[in-house]
């Protein structure tokens, strides 16, 4: 079924009787060409591109709970491609381009909204670093603008310009950055993949791999054994646990990132703003809630909840930057489990087990990567070769010293 304004009108007039399931609810088949573990944004996107670009149709996505229940369902919805390093920027720029055509590709309005992202500058050194980054972005075709303090004030006059502990001295802006309605991304990919024959199987937890002679043959699940030519793992928040079933140790630690939303407010903030002197970034949803976040709690955890000190830290940054939100109220806070890698950049790679592929370590940048991650993982699964934009995301890079460390904090996951 195609979605359109005409269809909405017609259904409205005829009692909404014609709407059908957005995706089927199939029983698992005994064997697939490719099994994707993880029905999150990345897994579903992988399935969609496998079917739509790489002509793979015997594909299943296995989800232990309900699709979109991981980090695609609990993030701050930001998209951008404002990276510095060569290993990252082409990939994120590819992702942004895919976002730009997503709705037409999926026939689903995920509300991709390119309302710009403003990274504030508070020191001269920060300006130097952002100049370097802005230039890298332009070289990669991503676009960037460097604003001075006066220009920033004109764009976002409600920030704290006159009584700030760390004055705003400028900003790096990417006009193409913005936000997306996050749940809709999962649903849109699921519906599109489903329409091309992909089986999306919910409530199906993988309990083990069947590996013989160094080759993966399939997966054991709570709904029985499922054979697979290839298995792709995209289980953000659970990577170490799932890959341990295949006997692997990963360069990953799992941490919790809290995110927050305020009560609904009439429009306050035009785009995305990130504070350069504290842990705070914010946008406003179409519903009117301020959506914001900050730093991870900083300790290993698999509990989807954080603690109060980080909440306070984020709100301190928020009110320090935007004194107008002191009387806005925080409505809801939640936590998502981030697979923090050892250099802050992800992995999309084959493993030493034939037919077993891994996608993970997205730290807290996985949402914006969803389309490109799916595309690149689909490419790797279908062709056995890394996608051109994802050649740096190898698991062996630490042996070579080829870290992709945007923040420059080293092998300490909680600092990335």
């Amino acid at each position: 079924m195609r979605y359109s304004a005409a269809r909405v009108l017609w259904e409205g007039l005829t009692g909404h009787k014609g709407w059908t399931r957005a995706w089927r609810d199939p029983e698992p088949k005994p064997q697939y060409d490719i099994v994707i573990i993880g029905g999150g944004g990345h897994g579903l996107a992988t399935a969609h591109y496998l079917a739509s670009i790489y002509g793979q149709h015997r594909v299943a996505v296995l989800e232990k709970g309900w699709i979109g229940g991981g980090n695609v369902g609990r993030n701050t919805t930001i998209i951008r491609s404002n990276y510095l390093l060569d290993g990252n920027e082409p990939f994120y720029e590819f992702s942004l381009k895919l976002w730009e055509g997503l709705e037409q590709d999926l026939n689903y309005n995920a509300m991709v909204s390119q309302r710009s992202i403003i990274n504030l500058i508070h020191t001269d050194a920060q300006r130097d670093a952002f100049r370097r980054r802005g230039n890298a972005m332009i070289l990669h075709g991503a676009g960037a603008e460097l604003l001075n303090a006066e220009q920033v004030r004109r764009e976002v006059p409600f920030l704290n310009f006159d009584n700030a502990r760390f004055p705003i001295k400028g900003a790096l802006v990417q006009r193409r950055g913005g936000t997306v309605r996050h749940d809709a991304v999962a649903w849109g990919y699921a519906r599109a993949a489903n329409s091309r024959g992909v089986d999306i199987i919910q409530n199906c937890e993988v309990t083990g791999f069947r590996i013989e002679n160094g080759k993966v043959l399939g997966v054991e699940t709570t709904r029985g054994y499922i054979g697979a030519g290839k298995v792709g793992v995209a289980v953000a928040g659970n990577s170490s646990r799932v890959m341990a079933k295949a006997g692997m140790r990963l360069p990953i630690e799992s941490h919790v990132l809290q995110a927050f939303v305020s009560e609904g407010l009439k429009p306050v903030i035009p785009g995305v703003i990130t504070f350069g002197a504290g842990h705070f970034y914010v946008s406003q949803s179409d519903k009117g809630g301020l959506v914001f976040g900050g730093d991870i709690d900083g300790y290993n955890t698999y509990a989807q909840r954080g603690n109060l000190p980080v909440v306070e830290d984020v709100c301190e940054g928020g009110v320090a930057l935007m004194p107008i939100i002191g009387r806005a109220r925080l409505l809801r806070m939640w936590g998502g489990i981030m697979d923090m890698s050892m250099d802050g950049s992800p992995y999309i790679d084959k493993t030493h087990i034939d037919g077993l592929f891994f996608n993970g370590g997205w730290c807290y940048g996985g949402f914006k990567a969803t389309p490109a991650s799916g595309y690149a993982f689909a490419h790797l699964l279908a062709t056995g070769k890394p996608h051109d934009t994802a050649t740096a995301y190898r698991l062996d890079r630490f042996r070579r010293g080829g870290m992709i460390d945007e923040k420059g904090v080293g092998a300490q996951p909680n600092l990335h």
Partner: protein
Amino acid sequence: MLIPHPILGLRDAQEFTYLGDASLLDRPDGMAEGASEAFHDYLYLRDNPAGEHRELWFHEQGDRSWLVVTRNTLTHEITKAELARDVALARRGVK
């Protein structure tokens, strides 16, 4: 979170700085054969368990002790906290 400091009793985790897996105590010998591989595994690979985890916390806003805390990563329950110094000395004794 509250950390049961072996000397000071329950102290707010906010007073501490977190480092990570307590396996960082087991630094390989830099002068040994195969040090490169040993350091790779030491620095980059993690068990990252969902359950009991031994980890290093520094009591930065307290007595400046490094602690080895045994904490469950699913429940956050802390079952043990030791001075890292004691743990490290004990390990050296074993070697």
